[in-house]
């Protein structure tokens, strides 16, 4: 007997959904055995230390060195997997895009601008990643944010009080090209925020030791 094919056309998963699932499984499933390795190494290390203390000598110098190396390798893997988790979460984080005045978005900071009536500008954006970006770069003290505009965008130049690596362009691409180099650094944080902004069609890039963000001007914003 020949089985007849199903009559309904199966639903295809979008590449985005598949990538999300892969990112999640990489960050979750690979961390699980890694935890076993690093915690086991630590348990043995504590036993070796206790034995050394009890006998007054380091009886297992090679074991201790090997375990420390194992732990170091596990920590390095943990750092890179953590960066993948950060990216995975940035892709899934809920957003609340709304229209709001630039002065509200940048409240608490000093805005310098050649634009006429910058206080009348409004943009369409989820404020959370923008605020987090400013906090990450400038700390909690007021920063001087330079503001420009085109017909379609308000451009923010956010200076950095943190040491930015010599890196122009996209922190997300930098992280994607080398987890080894950038995982656990400020580039990972910026990559996560860039991804959240990119999901709102808000471009962001690094240049001249600062971060530039292009916020879409909302309809009806003053010119």
């Amino acid at each position, binding site marked *: 007997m020949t089985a007849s094919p199903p009559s309904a056309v199966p639903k295809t998963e979008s590449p985005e959904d598949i990538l999300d699932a892969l990112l*999640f499984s990489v*960050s*979750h*499933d690979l*961390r*699980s055995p*890694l*935890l*076993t390795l*690093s*915690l*086991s190494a*630590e*348990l043995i290390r*504590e036993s070796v230390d206790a034995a050394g203390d009890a006998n007054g000598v380091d009886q297992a110098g090679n074991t201790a060195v090997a375990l420390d190396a194992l732990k170091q390798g596990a*920590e390095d893997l*943990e750092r890179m997997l953590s960066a993948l*988790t950060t990216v*995975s*979460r940035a892709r*899934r*984080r*809920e957003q609340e895009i709304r229209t709001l005045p630039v002065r509200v978005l940048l409240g608490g900071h000093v805005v310098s601008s050649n634009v006429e009536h910058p206080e009348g500008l409004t943009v369409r954006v989820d404020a959370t990643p923008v605020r987090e970006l400013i906090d990450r770069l400038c700390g909690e003290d007021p920063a001087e944010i330079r503001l420009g505009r085109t017909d379609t965008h308000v451009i923010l130049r956010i200076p950095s009080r943190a040491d930015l690596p010599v890196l122009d362009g996209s922190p997300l691409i930098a992280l994607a090209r080398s987890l080894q180099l950038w995982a656990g650094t400020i580039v990972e944080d910026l990559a996560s925020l860039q991804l959240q902004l990119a999901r709102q069609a808000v471009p962001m890039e690094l240049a001249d030791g600062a971060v530039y963000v292009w916020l879409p001007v909302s309809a009806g914003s003053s010119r």
Partner: protein
Amino acid sequence: MNQGAVPVVIVDDEVDHAIIIRRVLAAIAPYAAVDVMTDPHGVEDRLLQAPFRALLLMDRMLAGRQSIDLIPGLLHARPDLSIALLSAALSDEDRKRALAAGAVAAAEKPGTLDGWRMLLRELLGLHRARSVA
């Protein structure tokens, strides 16, 4: 004070994790009565037989199934239990879901022994406060 005198059930199909959690618990709460369940099949029924006022340390993924979905039914049948959800990776959304389902806590599994000691002390403290209330 005998902070460890409490029934604890570790529910984790990652056998190595369950063993490590039990060892850390033995060191920080030597009087805790610890059961371990590493076979996820039929776990819901077996958890209904958990000791009175037990603290369940439950992995989020059991045999590929989200254990968050088990929480409301378990607590409906056994409101005396405290459930803490643990996972190798836990998003904010998952944490909120677990708490909304009735878990007393939801946390990522720490990567260090000191992290485990701190987390388990915190969970035992939470459980004790809840048992007294």
